[in-house]
């Protein structure tokens, strides 16, 4: 179990996260504003990468879950867990920014729209994944149940992505990943790609940190479970026969 706790916790991920955040910010601020939407279109350079990184995170969760079920190595379970948690964070960010954006362009915080609703469902599904992990302290049982859900929940992604094609709704249809190729201004595409790249780097740094934390959590759990303390049966003592209550 000593392997779970590293002697030195790396500092570089923190630095990488800060730099990646800064790059995204600078990129979003230097690009010329959108002709129609004005300054607010800058939100896009955070909103869209957030959404995509959420996909990436959940994809990694699925793959790590699959590998866990195959190898039964808890390290993969920790990766799946870490990635799901980061994915929930990015989904939340995408929704929050989308709502702010929506308030200014559609005039409402939230509206019935297939993508919005399905994104919200996706958020809750992965919250459910995290909740499922809390229902037991048995690490193997927890890992197995979570892995099954981690794989199943992936159907959310195509659902969210294609929802705009399936229904004509308010939300932007895909403008980059689609059969005819991107139809955006080159500068905007480049900025977007920069943002996505730095978000991906940020994701990797977050993963390193979160997996490290997960190892620590597991180490604590193992310590708790092996050091049983006063045996369970000792809660029961001989009855007091001196005359009762």
């Amino acid at each position, binding site marked *: 179990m000593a392997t779970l706790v590293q002697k030195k916790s790396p500092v570089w991920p923190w630095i990488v996260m800060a730099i990646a955040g800064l790059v995204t910010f600078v990129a979003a601020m230097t690009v010329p504003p959108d002709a129609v939407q004005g300054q607010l279109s800058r939100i896009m350079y955070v909103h869209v990468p957030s959404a995509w990184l959420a996909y990436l995170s959940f994809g990694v969760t699925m793959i790590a879950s699959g590998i866990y079920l195959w190898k039964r190595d808890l390290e993969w379970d920790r990766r799946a867990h870490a990635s799901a948690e980061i994915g929930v964070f990015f989904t939340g960010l995408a929704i929050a920014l989308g709502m702010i954006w929506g308030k200014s362009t559609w005039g409402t915080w939230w509206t019935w729209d297939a993508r919005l609703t399905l994104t919200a469902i996706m958020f809750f599904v992965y919250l459910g994944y995290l909740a*499922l992990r809390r*229902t037991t302290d048995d690490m*193997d*049982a927890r890992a197995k149940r979570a892995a099954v859900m981690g794989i199943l929940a992936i159907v959310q992604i195509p*659902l969210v992505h294609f929802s705009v094609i399936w229904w004509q709704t308010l939300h932007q249809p895909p403008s980059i990943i689609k059969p005819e190729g991107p139809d955006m201004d080159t500068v905007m595409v480049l900025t977007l790609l920069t943002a996505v790249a730095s978000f991906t780097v940020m994701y990797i740094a977050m993963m390193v940190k979160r997996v490290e934390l997960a190892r620590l959590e597991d180490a604590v759990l193992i310590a708790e479970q092996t050091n049983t303390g006063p045996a369970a049966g000792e809660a029961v003592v001989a009855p007091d026969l001196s005359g009762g209550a």
Partner: protein
Amino acid sequence: MTRTSFWTQAMAITKRDVMRERRSGEVLWVTLPFGAIALLLIPIAIGTDRPTLRAIGVGMFWVIVMLFGVLIAVRQAHTESQAQRDVVALTGIDPAAGYVGRVIASFMFLIGFEVVLAVVTVALYDVPLDGWAWMPLVMVLVGAGLSLLGTLAASIVSTGRSASALVPLLVAPLSVPLLIGATQTFEALRLGRSSLTWTLMMVIVILLLAIAGVMSARTLQES
């Protein structure tokens, strides 16, 4: 003692579930009437404007089928005690056979449920009957999908504290493609387009669920 085949085991489980339902009448006497009441209450609540009712009838039918159907399929999570589960586990039944057996039983209840509710819907909502020839197929697909999904969800949560809390979250993501598939099939037919894509999507979801359920059965049986 001879080790029994996969299908013998699955059938034993199905038979048990059917028998328990016949004795308790949970689906027949509680879920089914509640579903029918739901369909009855809707026109009362939203007003009996015929065009509106016609427009929403089919959709409502599927929503009620999804909601109550999932409740039917997860019921076993609540109706089996630890001691009963222990006894079944110790027969050495292949957990995958157990999964399949339970799915088949739920599927049968769901088909019955769908048929009765379909009749109620047609009677109450005056829905357009175009594409009714597709109805049996879609019903079977939805029934299969929901029973696979509900049984899987029930086995994922069957142990652990406050586990039932997770059922809706597990069920929601996968029931959405089924719902979309079912409603869009009829929408496509109405608009004269091909509904094959939707059917295909449902078939894929069903296959995924079946594979997931069978593969994870042993894993999930352990506490």
